[in-house]
């Protein structure tokens, strides 16, 4: 069965499970149990406890509809426990067996009442391509086009009716070959059709803003017999075997969590015996094992190449090592085989303090949350201490052999990403520049003078279709500088862009050192009383501490004046992560109006009289015309 090799194997699990208090277990205790290497039976047991526990103990559930052509009851515990593993809770709706089309198409269906936030299409190979050999290649092609078009029209209805995240599972390659190595010569064989239908589904899903759950990709790791048992298919119409259900849930939740901005952002690396063999402080530059000559040295090199490639696609790299800083840096500067260079590392900490303290420093230096960190260390002692001290940080188990490091990190799926933008591809560099800047802050006594010399340009634009992907990504992953933390789908953002009464704009920051890309989004809605209410205001933490928020407000005030809005209404909705903007409206000169609900605060500013200082910035609008 597919195994969770990156999770610790806890020999005390059964005892800890048995000692859970009946009825009302504590949420963190349940979450900790989900973060061990557990098999499908333990998953079912833990799920039972979770379902029996009162909903108040966890976070607000996410409503997931599982639409399937076959039996999926065995998948539910794996889905709920994968959510629990991330501190999330799922409320799952499964329409009657085989009724997934009706559920989507019938406005009176129970699915409509359920109001799903996520819709997962779990279609088996027989329902998708059939089990007959279609001898005419053209007939096979039109059969597949017809089947995928039918499915994509269901996606469209799902997107339009519910505005939900739609996920399409790729088809499990369960069929036997007719030819063998030359299977591609019979495009209408069931086995060949599954391969081509998965290609088609990927392309269609991309074009339709639908996410894919890549079961076929994971099957390449585990083998199809770990995922599908023909006996259980014939006996109970289970496409996915119970033993694979926990991994199914894990893969699905990665996609759901990634859409909500909950993937990790930063890979924090230990040095000795993690990036090279031996201890640089003891063995010296010539003594460490890295690169050509030994299999172990090649293994470390392979891991460095993987880390470098992750950085190139937007993952931030950091170093956290117990070493003298000069020794640690020397390897990066002088070792001829090093793939990673100091310029790849956005935060470099080498000292003798404990690692939990240093991980806090790294998170603070990079302006990201602890839950965005993945800490990779070969030393079980360090791993355990970090797990205990900082339960938010993800700490994978690491195999003995460095040749297996990269596959372990990849299997763990911490950095699940659904989109790739040109911003991601240059982010590594941009963080590097931010770090240099922040270091400059400390050295420069005259911060104002420094900022004035930065030649910052704040460039803004109204929401348009070209930028929706990046804007939606930013809206859904920004947790800290985010006044309301409202999440939107691309379709909802498109609706805002087209609404003439709404104000939707985004901002890009460029300075003499770097182009920081799109760093902020503002969405305002006109109220019936003629005021402009700020529905969303968020900003990337990479550009904090430069007065960008004040410059942003000046744009907002200017727009409100032009639109004739009688007031700008600010709203702060507190979350566990956005404490840094609790006082933002107050700092920017808004007047406090009232508290709403539990602890939301409402603020107001008169655009006619507001005076905003924007020295240090040049501000300009870019129009599509």
């Amino acid at each position, binding site marked *: 069965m597919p195994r969770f090799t990156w999770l610790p194997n806890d020999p005390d699990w059964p005892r800890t499970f048995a000692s859970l208090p009946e009825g009302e277990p504590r949420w963190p205790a349940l979450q900790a149990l989900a973060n061990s290497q557990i098999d*499908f*039976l333990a998953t*079912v*047991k833990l799920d*039972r406890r979770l379902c029996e526990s009162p909903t108040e103990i966890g976070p607000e559930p996410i409503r997931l509809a599982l639409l399937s052509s076959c039996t999926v*009851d*065995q998948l539910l515990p794996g889905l709920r426990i994968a959510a629990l593993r991330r501190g999330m809770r799922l409320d799952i709706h499964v329409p009657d067996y085989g009724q997934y089309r009706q559920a989507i198409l019938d406005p009176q269906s129970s699915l409509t009442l359920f109001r799903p936030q996520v819709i997962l299409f779990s279609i088996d190979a027989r329902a998708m391509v059939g089990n007959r050999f279609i001898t005419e290649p053209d007939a096979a092609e039109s059969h597949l086009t017809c089947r995928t078009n039918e499915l994509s029209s269901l996606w469209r209805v799902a997107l339009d009716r519910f505005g939900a995240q739609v996920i399409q599972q790729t088809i499990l390659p369960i069929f036997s070959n007719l030819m063998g190595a030359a299977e591609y010569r019979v495009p209408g064989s069931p086995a060949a059709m599954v391969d081509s239908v998965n290609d088609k589904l990927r392309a269609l899903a991309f074009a339709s803003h639908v996410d894919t759950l890549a079961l076929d990709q994971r099957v390449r790791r585990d083998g199809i017999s770990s995922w599908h048992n023909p*006996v*259980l298919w*014939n*006996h*109970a119409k*289970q496409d996915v*075997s*119970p*033993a694979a259900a926990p991994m199914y849930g894990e893969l699905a939740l990665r996609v759901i969590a990634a859409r909500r901005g909950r993937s990790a952002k930063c890979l924090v690396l230990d040095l000795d015996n993690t990036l090279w063999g031996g201890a640089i402080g003891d063995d010296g530059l010539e003594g460490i094992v890295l690169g050509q000559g030994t299999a172990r040295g090649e293994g470390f090199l392979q891991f460095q190449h993987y880390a470098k490639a992750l950085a190139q696609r937007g993952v931030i790299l950091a170093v956290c090592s117990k070493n003298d800083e000069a020794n640690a840096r020397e390897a990066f500067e002088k070792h001829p085989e090093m793939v990673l260079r100091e310029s790849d590392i956005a935060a470099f900490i080498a000292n003798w303090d404990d690692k939990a303290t240093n991980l806090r420093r790294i998170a603070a230096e990079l302006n990201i949350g602890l839950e965005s960190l993945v800490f990779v260390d070969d030393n079980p002692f360090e791993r355990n201490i970090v797990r205990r001290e900082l339960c938010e940080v993800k700490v994978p188990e690491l195999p003995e052999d460095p040749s297996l490091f990269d596959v372990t990190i990849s299997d763990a799926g911490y950095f699940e990403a659904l989109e790739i933008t040109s911003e991601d591809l240059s982010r590594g560099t941009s963080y590097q520049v931010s770090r240099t800047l922040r270091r400059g802050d400390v050295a420069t006594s005259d911060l104002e003078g420094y900022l004035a010399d930065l030649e910052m340009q704040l460039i803004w634009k109204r929401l348009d279709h070209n930028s929706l992907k990046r804007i939606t990504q930013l809206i859904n992953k920004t947790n800290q500088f985010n006044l309301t933390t409202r999440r939107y789908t691309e379709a909802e953002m498109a609706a805002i862009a087209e609404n003439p009464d709404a104000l939707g704009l985004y901002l890009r920051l460029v300075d003499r050192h770097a182009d920081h890309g799109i760093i902020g989004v503002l969405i305002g809605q006109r109220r019936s009383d003629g005021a402009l209410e700020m529905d969303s205001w968020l900003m990337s933490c990479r550009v904090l501490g430069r007065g960008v928020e004040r410059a942003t407000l000046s744009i907002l005030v200017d727009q409100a004046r032009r639109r004739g809005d009688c007031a700008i209404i600010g709203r702060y909705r507190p979350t566990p992560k956005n404490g840094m903007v609790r006082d933002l409206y107050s700092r920017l000169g808004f007047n406090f109006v009232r508290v709403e609900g539990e602890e939301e605060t409402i603020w107001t500013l008169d655009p006619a009289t507001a005076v905003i200082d924007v020295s240090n910035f040049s501000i300009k609008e870019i129009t599509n015309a």
Partner: protein
Amino acid sequence: MHEAEIYAKLTEIFRDIFDDDSIILSANTTALDIPRWDSVNHINLTVAAENAFGIEFGSSDLEELRNVGDLVAAIKRKIR
């Protein structure tokens, strides 16, 4: 493997899956005797037994399982 050993191991599996340490199995025990023994848990049981005894059930084995006695008989056939 003696029948008693098979029963002992199966009892462990049943108690684990149904989260109930008071379960005592006999050949006549059926799904009616154990409240949580539904169709999903039935499959889970057979997969757990496959793992525990290092066997694989075939389609006909699964069709003949009416009570615990049938399950024990199927396991005996497979491990022989």
